[in-house]
């Protein structure tokens, strides 16, 4: 059974191309451009979350902190994505497992996803 990955970014193009990348690598990908949906997420949890730091209307850091606090979701690996130079620090502060800086190499994204999904 293929692993499920949720991609959350407020830019539809990013969501679209990241989805394609991951699907090419055989993952089952769901997407959202609205942070609110992650808060409301129930039951069908993904195996990994790719989360943009700046979601319009929502702060990616808050979402990350929320998920890491919640018992049911705290074990989902979260990789934060950002165009900000300080992506690494921000990700660390929010409690994310890893980070990817925009723009990214497809290879990097796939390597990191594989790493967390397989562990």
């Amino acid at each position, binding site marked *: 059974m293929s692993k499920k990955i949720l991609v959350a970014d407020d830019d539809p*193009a*990013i969501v679209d191309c990241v989805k394609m990348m991951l699907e090419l690598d055989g993952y089952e990908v769901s997407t959202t451009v609205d942070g609110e949906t992650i808060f409301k997420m129930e039951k069908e949890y993904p195996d990994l979350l790719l989360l943009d730091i700046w979601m319009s209307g929502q702060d990616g850091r808050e979402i990350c902190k929320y998920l890491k606090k919640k018992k049911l979701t705290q074990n989902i690996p979260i990789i934060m994505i950002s165009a900000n130079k300080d992506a690494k620090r921000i990700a660390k502060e929010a409690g994310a497992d890893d980070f990817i800086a925009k*723009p990214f190499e*497809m290879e990097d994204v796939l390597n990191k996803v594989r790493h967390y999904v397989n562990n």
Partner: protein
Amino acid sequence: MKKQKTQQEIVRENEDLRGRLEEAEETLRAIRHGEVDALVVKGKEGPRIYTLKGADHTYRVLIESMNEGAVTFDSSGIILYANQGFSDMIGIPLKKVIGSMIISYIAIEDLKVFKKLLSESRVGSRHEKEIQIVKKGTGNFPSLLSVAPIDLENDKPGMSMITTDLSGQKQHEQLIAEEKLSEQRLKHEKALRREIENEQNKLTELFMQAPALIAILKEPQHIFELANPLYMQLVGMRDIVGKPIREALPELKGQGIYELLDSVYKTGKPYFGNEVLVKLDRKGDGKLEDSYFNFVYQASRNSKNKIDGILIYAIEVTEQVKARQLVEESEEKFRTLAENIPNLVWTANADGWIYWYNSRWYKYTGTKPAQMEGWGWKSVHHPDALPHVLKKWKESITTGEPFEMVFPIKGKDKKFRPFLTRVIPVKDKKGKIIKWFGTNTDISKQKELERQKDDFLGIASHELKTPVTSIKAYGQVLQTIFTRKGDQKAVEQLQKMDAQINKLTNLIGDLLDVTKIQSGRLEFHEDYFDFNGLVGEVIDDLQLTTEKHKIKQELGKVKKVYADRERIGQVITNLISNAIKYSPHTKKIIVRTKKEKNKVTLSVEDFGVGIPKAKQDKVFKQFFRVSGPKLSTFPGLGLGLYVSSEIIKREGGQIWVESQVGKGSTFYFNLPIDKQKIKQQQNSLVQNEIQHE
């Protein structure tokens, strides 16, 4: 029954008395002439025999004939014997002297001394003292008394005394003393005269060589008696000595000088002139030149204390006055200018003491001159910015280097606005700083515009990154698809597209950093990190980007370094990327690290195109690129090294390059290992300085 004396009895008694008188006189004579050794005196208590023990006839003759007085007296001071010399000295007949008291001939004021002499003499030997003796009719005279004990009849103690009249000797002594004195006086006078002559010579010399203008005028017409060489030069070596001033220096007419001299001669009051303008014919060619003098006219007096002339002592100050007039004029022009420009302007002494602000300063700050004078400006500075301002300003004062800085100044409305402050030293001909000229320009509008520009660039570059990210991702997805389809040509095209997208990404990153650097908003997150570890990571990443180059590591022992790991990583990336970029035909790149004292140095060596010597110091400037025929092959905005050098500078290090054209370049940078510690030390220093203000 009393018997009546007969005529016969009376005659007999008379003869008897005459006989006894003659006998007595004979005895006295005999004693005086030493013919008698002893004599019997009939007293109330019966006859007493006095013998001069050891008396010798010869001595007695000698004693009688000498000028000195010789006296013998008993222990009660009764004179038993005196010679004629003594009698003459005291002016009393010998008959009356014998039997009288010795002390009656001693001056009252010398009685004490005399008694002391006696008591000393009783001890045995002869003693002498100068004692005044009373002479009847003429008063006291100095005498030398020489006293010795003597045994009298029946071993009774007595005294023998020789007196020598010293008045003659004294007079002589006085004469000699006076003579000596006058001789000394003469000598002294001579010496004085010589000294006076010397002084006069010195004075004349001083006169002639003094760096001042000196002249002596005599008589009410002010006739030049003397003028020193400087004075002569001043008047064009005209023949002035012996001439009255009105004739000697006719150009002074109407300038008030003659009148001044007349008044000094008349009143005797000295006149002090300060920077007085005199139009003088200095070359003797009839042309008058403006000259300024500080001078004194002092009346001189003759031995009868009557004014007989005037001494002129003057110093020419023309150059100073003219220079000052120039300065005053330029100062006036400067102030007019300074008051009419929109900047805040001020001037300070060489030591930084601000003595003048333009009115705009007071208008903006709402302060009064008394509050601002000197270092009063500190009160309108922001306390957070002040220590750095003070430190930099003091550095400039010490080194003489111009000062430039942006810092906030508080306005009348209590709001701080950023001001660009520039201070330049004003130097004299010798290069010595005489003052500082400062301007403060309100740049809040520029700052606001800059901020807007930075914000725009920040947002723009962030926004640009989003589509670039998706373009890159789509491209890579496509690459994967075409790879799987086996369309190699399409894959190659897409790889080229990806490389271009990477360049675009770097450009966006550099632009963002440059903006941040220029606005001072390049943020640093400093902490301790493993320096060699970072170097290894960067090399690993970059090794992946090049197949051609082999990046060699030669890492020394370096412990943790306190700096921003990301930023330092950015610099190392930039240096290695450059090495790759600028060595397209060689393979080796060497990265070295080493620790020296409290610094760590990293170098990146390539064997590529190199940089010409003249351009080596420019590579760290904004927009510099290695140019030449191969320009097109070396892309980039030339921002990378600029950003790197700014990062290294901000981290307290240095960056430099060694290079040879055609042989390659080595880029270096160093960093303080424990900046944290240094920072703390500096902070406490600055803190101390502020407290000492």
